[in-house]
């Protein structure tokens, strides 16, 4: 017996094996192994995207809260005149000077007051 005879001998195997090899759908096998993998990948990607979105939103929201910027859309009517929103600059540079020092707002030095220039 040689390799050629063995190859020819395969012609005499049971027809059920020939049919099995013909009908054995590769796509079924592929789907069986790959479908769960595909679903897992989609779920993981969705979770990743949602996580990123939540993290980005939380970061932006935190910054806005730190700077006391209204975080929702507000009209002029909504904002009360008695509690004006403090700007970022105002919070960084308070307009109240330490005690003892005169406030510069609205009070010019005497020598520079326009009235002091008028003839007495």
């Amino acid at each position, binding site marked *: 017996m040689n390799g050629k005879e063995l190859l020819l001998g395969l012609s005499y*195997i049971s027809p059920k094996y020939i049919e*099995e090899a013909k009908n054995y759908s590769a796509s079924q*096998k592929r789907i069986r192994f790959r479908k769960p993998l595909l679903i897992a990948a989609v779920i993981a990607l969705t979770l990743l995207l949602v996580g990123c979105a939540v993290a980005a939103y939380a970061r932006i929201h935190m910054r806005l809260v730190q700077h006391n910027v209204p975080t929702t859309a507000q009209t002029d009517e909504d904002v009360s005149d008695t509690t004006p929103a403090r700007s970022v600059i105002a919070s960084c540079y308070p307009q109240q000077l330490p005690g003892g020092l005169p406030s510069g707002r609205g009070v010019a030095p005497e020598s520079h007051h326009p009235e002091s220039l008028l003839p007495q």
Partner: protein
Amino acid sequence: MEDAKIVELFWARNEDAIKETDAVYGRRLNALAKNILQSREDAEESVNDTYMETWEAIPPQRPRYFFAFLAAICRHLSLTRLDWNMAAKRKAEVVSLTEDMEQCIPDASHERTMRGKELGRILDAFLESLPKDSRVIFLRRYWYVDTIAEIARQYGMTESKVKMQLSRTKEKLRIYLEKEEIRV
């Protein structure tokens, strides 16, 4: 058309049987013959001869697996038609399969002549012992003469995995034939 109806046409000696057979299985048979012969014209002739053989065989036969019946005739005719010397020069796929099969034969069996049906019985028992995946891949390669790349693509595997699986199956076949040599 269903296999049973085509077989009935053969039994009724209705020539539409060949036309219907060609419509249902012509493409597959052509692919099988072309895999072996590597020539479209030779493959067509081989398929036509298959129809003629089938016409002569049915009746009296009534095959349960009609495609397997046709394909076995087609494969056998194609392998008989093949010019092995020319195929060796062209390094045809089927020649490499013969070399593969050679490795599966134990030394003691080289001197022995086995009839086809006897060999078929032994191979049946061997195939029965294999897991389904290994069996199908083995048959796609050595029965249908599919290339490694085709099998890998069809079954969603890498080529190296297909080669590894085939190599293991061949080793199992060698061991099996060695055992059978003692019993037969």
